[in-house]
């Protein structure tokens, strides 16, 4: 059994068309990212709270959405998770103290535009368990004419700042406490009660809650960047050592190509980038690199075997010679990724999707991006320096 014998496909001459295709995909992705102001980051990086609820019978999501909006979590996002019985609810991002103060002020201006709001102070507070306060931000604001306290809490909640406790301090001042944690259980509990009141005959189970404070989110963001940059650098050094610098450039460009396209597709589909997706992206980096190295190895081998061939032809021969392996490995990897995508469960769904995209794009890039870059590099830099000497 054999899909590919000796092939003689002219990949190299196809490279300009491939570059255009890659460019279109990259630009579409970057365009979407630019419009949205960056990737949609999950609570892992932004900070925030997530609650996963499961009902014993299906519940229409529209009803649930209305309930949640009426309860005042307008910023909350709700989506079906796997089947119509299970839902994922993401509630407002928790912010650093300064950002929290800014957001609160914005919400207050929206709630009572004529009050003349002013920020007095904002600071981080440790927990006080005797008051059921579990740590967060304390923001004190003042108003030229303070609106009635009734409805202030609901007002700011409707305008995007949920889970606040309001304390009137004086005729002109109000203190808001915005807790970090503890809110997921409160939120989940509150939601559960509201929903139970609407569907008295349903059973509800809280399957998962996650809360990430803003500091951790910021740090995780930095660590994710550090991981990506350091692994890229490690690869650059390793390939430069084992091959040549231009091979490293080809590999890195192919990797950037794969990561940007995957990020772009995630942005176009409105999928969030979580920690697990970063892991998937780095796996794609590893996979695509694996593919690229196999072709590069062949090029290096042919470089010493077929000295009389032109650079272009030699690279084309190398791609063809390793084509069988490239396709078969992609196929076996796709088999498991597809089974992960369909049967791995909802939690791992986006991860599998990222890999699915990455394996396809990574295979494509090792044939149409990494190796052709070598030719372009050779034509532009190496050839020119040769004529100079």
């Amino acid at each position: 059994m054999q899909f590919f014998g000796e092939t003689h496909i002219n990949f190299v001459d196809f490279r300009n068309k491939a570059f255009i295709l890659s460019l279109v995909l990259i630009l579409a992705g970057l365009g979407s990212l630019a419009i949205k102001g960056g990737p949609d980051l999950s609570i892992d990086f932004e900070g925030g709270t997530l609650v996963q609820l499961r009902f014993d019978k299906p519940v229409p999501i529209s009803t649930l959405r209305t309930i949640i909006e009426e309860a005042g979590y307008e910023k909350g996002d709700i989506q079906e998770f796997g089947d119509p019985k299970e839902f994922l609810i993401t509630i407002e991002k928790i912010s650093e103290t300064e950002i929290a103060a800014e957001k609160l002020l914005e919400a207050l201006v929206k709630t009572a535009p004529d009050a003349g709001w002013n920020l007095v102070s904002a600071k981080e507070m440790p927990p006080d368990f005797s008051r059921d306060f579990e740590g967060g931000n304390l923001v004190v604001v003042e108003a030229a004419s303070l609106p009635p306290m009734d409805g202030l809490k609901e007002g700011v909640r409707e305008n995007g700042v949920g889970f606040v406790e309001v304390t009137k301090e004086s005729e002109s001042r109000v203190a808001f406490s915005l807790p970090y944690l503890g809110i997921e259980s409160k939120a989940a509990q509150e939601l559960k009660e509201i929903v139970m009141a609407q569907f008295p005959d349903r059973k509800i189970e809280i399957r998962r809650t996650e809360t990430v404070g803003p500091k951790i989110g910021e740090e995780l963001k930095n660590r994710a960047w550090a991981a990506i940059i350091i692994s890229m650098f490690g690869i650059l050094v390793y390939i430069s050592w084992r091959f040549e610098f231009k091979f490293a450039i080809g590999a890195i460009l192919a990797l950037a190509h794969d990561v940007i396209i995957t990020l772009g597709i995630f942005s176009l589909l409105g999928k969030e980038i979580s920690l697990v997706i970063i892991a998937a992206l780095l796996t794609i980096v590893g996979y695509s690199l694996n593919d690229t190295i196999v072709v590069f190895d062949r090029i290096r081998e042919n470089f010493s075997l077929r000295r009389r061939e032109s650079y272009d032809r030699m690279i084309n021969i190398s791609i063809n010679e390793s084509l069988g392996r490239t396709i078969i490995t992609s196929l076996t990897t796709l088999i498991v990724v597809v089974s992960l995508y369909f049967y791995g469960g909802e939690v791992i769904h986006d991860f599998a999707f990222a890999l699915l995209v990455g394996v396809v794009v990574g295979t494509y890039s090792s044939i149409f991006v990494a190796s052709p870059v070598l030719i372009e590099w050779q034509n532009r830099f190496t050839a020119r320096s040769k004529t100079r000497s």
Partner: protein
Amino acid sequence: MSKSLRYKTILVLIVSLGALWFLLPTFRLIMMSEEERQAMAIERPEEYDKLESKAIKRGLDLSGGMHLVLEVDDSKLDEDERVDVVDRALEVIRNRVDQFGVTEPVIKREGSKRIIVQLPGLQDPARARRLIGQTAMLEWRLIRQRAVVVDIVKRLDVVLRDTPEDSLAEKQVIEGETSIGTDPVLDRSETEIAAAIQDQPDSFAQDSLLFPLPQSEILPEIPLQESDRDKPFSSYLMTFYKDWLVVHEKNVPRVRKLLALEEAQKAIPDDSDFLWLDEWADLPEGGRGKFLFLVARDEMVSGKNLQNATPASDPNSPNKLLIRFQFNRAGARELSRFTGKNINRFTAIVLDGKIKSYPIIRTKIPDGRGVIEGTFTDTEAKDLSVVLRAGALPADLIPREERTVGPSLGSDSIMMGLRAALLGLALVVLFMVFYYKISGLIASLALILNLLILFGLLAYLGAALTLPGIAGIILTIGMAIDANVLIFERIREELRKAKTIRSAIDAGYDKAFTTIVDANLTTLITAVVLWQFGTGPIKGFATTLSIGILGSMFSALIFSRLLFDLWTKNGKIKKLSI
């Protein structure tokens, strides 16, 4: 059999048997039913613990439970207190969690100021947070007498005279009560204060060693008056009762604010603090009030010598719970000296800066015993006893991250991961056998050995299996076959060049060798970086991916080569099934 072939056989046998050996406890646990497991845990707990500790552990996302990241807030500590504050906090948390009765908790330090707490199987996050995060600083302090308090109140009236209205709000601390601001306030002239400075009749049972006051008492009626500019502090107070002040509910936030002002803090002597009673008292004229005490800093017994604390029911009101505590020898000596010196004086039992009760000392207490009063539920009383026994936290802990997973989600994830893995494995094996025939079978055996090594090492390293870890394993199934594919394609190429089977196999392995090493090492670079920079779930993924990569190199370059060599060694095979 040639020498190198023999060595390889021995190596492969050692590795596979080793992997199997490490996996044995896991197999035994999986084979047991839930009842058998419980029976063994009760009958032979040591053996069961050993078995469980040697089996592959499930991460929190698979077992269900709580993951908590806390940051030690050392901003209020001195330089030398900061040095080991995280270690001390870790010790206290460990003690508390141990008493809480969670199996296999993880409590470890992360970075310079963070503590990670993982509690598998825990389902009440709010309770756990309280149990872990409560400071639990217990003190037994002397209450200053009325004359001292009167002096300080007068001093406060003077220093606070020029306080502008607006500066009050900034120093405010977070409070649950709603403050009223400049509503009509309670006021009394100095003569009224003086009038109030008259001993109240003592109505306590004389036989009681320690008898705390009831929460509500009949208080003298004092008329409400307009705020007095000359008495910015005392005008918000209501009256004296014994040695302490009574503040009307409406004025509590204002008095808190005034006391927090810098000017006020300077006016209060260093050896004393104003502290509030944790509970409300009903006022005779209606409404509620809070007692404000001036307590000594220099005359006290600290809870660091606490030996034991247990919940008990209150002998005076059977429905209420209180907590009995017991000092160790040193603490008992201290308490004996403290009580002996202060007979017929009021003292305060202070927990985390709030007064729980204010017993009067009748006689010297020689045995180091006392009680904490309050309104506790069963759970609260039990948990408070636990945290008191475990000792006070050296600093506040600010929660930074929290994740909880319900038990059903965990088992669903395992089922789904297992299903996806088995399906993927079956399809890959089918495809390999279909495409490479007997050689494909060899590759499949290599794949299974790789999985065996992977799980064996996971068990050996004590690494927890997480959902992303399972994903890493599934990915390994797809990618590990690559090394064999590389070799097989090379062998086919060599066969096309009409080489003999032996030399085609040799050439195939030799030429694929550098490719496999280069390709896998670069992937390993990203996996190691991922491990280094990742947290929790990512680490699990990076671990399985790294082991998978190393395992796949071993199983392709050593194990499948060995099978090929054994298969073709006598040269009888005319056509290689590949």
